[in-house]
């Protein structure tokens, strides 16, 4: 537990880091959140023996994304704001290149920047009622934290452009079928199963083998197969 963080909780339990967005119900990604994430980034990168990181939201939702009013106000303050945007970007993009597995556990809404945060994770598990979307274009903006590129990489350009340009939301089943979510789990099992999966992953975890791990893990639920390759 880090007492200087106000918008997120960071707890390491048995070498598994739990990052909990802690401003329920919406867990909105405010300026303070990005500031906290910037500090937490240094903390996380200094931990040598993290086995995995789980990212989730307190309460019913993952997160509704950036606090738009606050963000626009910050940007109106002038040129310096451009640097702040870059800092916001790197405060959450570093998850993608971490050597340990990063798993987003998504329930409720996961919109805009929150979805972009999830796209920086290596794995995404969600509950049945999860709702996804990049609604930025409907607000005369674009997804500005890597979302366009990652959506297109995972789902293909055609599907990505369709959802990004219309800005419409989509459900868990759709997210899974277009390759944005790896597995749908019952809501009450989301944390238990993800923790179990994180423990199961091998010591010599390699992000490139992601789909093989998943396949083996799902098999191991019925048989006794280990994750080591």
């Amino acid at each position, binding site marked *: 537990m880090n007492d200087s963080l106000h918008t997120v909780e960071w707890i390491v339990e048995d070498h598994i880091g739990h990052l909990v967005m802690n401003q329920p119900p919406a867990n909105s990604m405010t300026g303070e959140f990005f500031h906290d994430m910037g500090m937490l980034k240094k903390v996380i990168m200094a931990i040598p023996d993290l086995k995995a990181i789980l990212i989730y939201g307190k309460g019913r939702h993952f997160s509704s994304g950036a606090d738009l009013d606050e*963000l*626009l*106000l910050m*940007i*109106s303050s002038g040129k310096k*704001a*451009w640097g702040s*945007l*870059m800092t916001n*970007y790197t405060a959450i*993009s570093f998850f993608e290149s971490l050597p340990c597995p990063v798993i987003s556990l998504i329930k409720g809404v996961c919109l805009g920047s929150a979805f972009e945060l999830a796209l920086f994770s290596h794995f995404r598990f969600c509950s049945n009622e999860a709702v996804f979307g990049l609604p930025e*274009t*409907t*607000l*005369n*903006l*674009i997804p*500005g934290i*890597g979302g*366009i*590129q990652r959506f*297109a990489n995972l789902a*293909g*350009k*055609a*599907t*990505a*452009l*369709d959802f*990004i*340009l*219309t800005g419409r939301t989509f459900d868990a089943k759709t997210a899974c079928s277009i390759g944005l979510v790896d597995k749908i789990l019952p809501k009450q099992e989301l944390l238990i199963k993800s923790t179990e999966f994180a423990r199961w992953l091998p010591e010599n975890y390699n992000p490139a083998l992601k789909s093989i791990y998943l396949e083996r893990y799902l098999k191991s639920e019925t048989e006794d197969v280990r994750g080591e390759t």
Partner: protein
Amino acid sequence: MNSRVKWDIKEGIGIISICNPPENYLYEPEFVRLETLREWTGEPTLKGILIRGEGKHFSAGGDLKRLFEMISAHEDLMEKLRTGHAVIDHLIGTNLPLVAAIQGVCFGGGLELALACHIRVASQNSIFASPETIHGLIPGMGGTVRLPATVGKSNALKMILSGEMISTDEAYRMKLIDFIVPGTEVFSFAFSLLRRMVKNLDPRIINAVMKTLQNSLILSPDKAIAEETKIFFELAQAEHSRRLSEPEI
């Protein structure tokens, strides 16, 4: 030469029709004059571009007879190839979503043109091929780059080295095309798809999304992130000013 390609605008969507029946051969690498294309696409209200072939086929690709004619007449083929690339680069550079509505044959240069599009809709009866190597040539309009980027090296090499034709189903399996629709509905499906995606958006926002996507494909990650942030920053500033001048009720 211009009559071999037609232009139309319908509900904000520019429609390029290859019109050299029956096979719709691309008469020259510069299948539409760059100057003409610039004029057409200069319309600031444009929200997307659809490319189709008139009649039964999308396009059988480059006109080989014409190609060898050009060489024997000592025309500057290299320059023509460069301009051909410039035409495709210009289409991508419009930063508008490009959709190919494909039916019948989609070969060689025709396939390369379709590959420059972001979305490919094809009829059940379409046939795809990259037959250049059979004629002692290689795909010369970006196909050697865009085909592997779209379907992976293994599928691309198989298509390019063998020159073999592949069916719509096979093309769909290798993600060469995004949608299969009945033959009579290719154009209307592609048009509605594109129209639905862009109808509520300002061209400025469409351009920003397309440019960001394109940047992620051609720039280094650091440069792409910096550009993305800059584009977001400018849009956010404009949106902030808009909100100040139009207070919510």
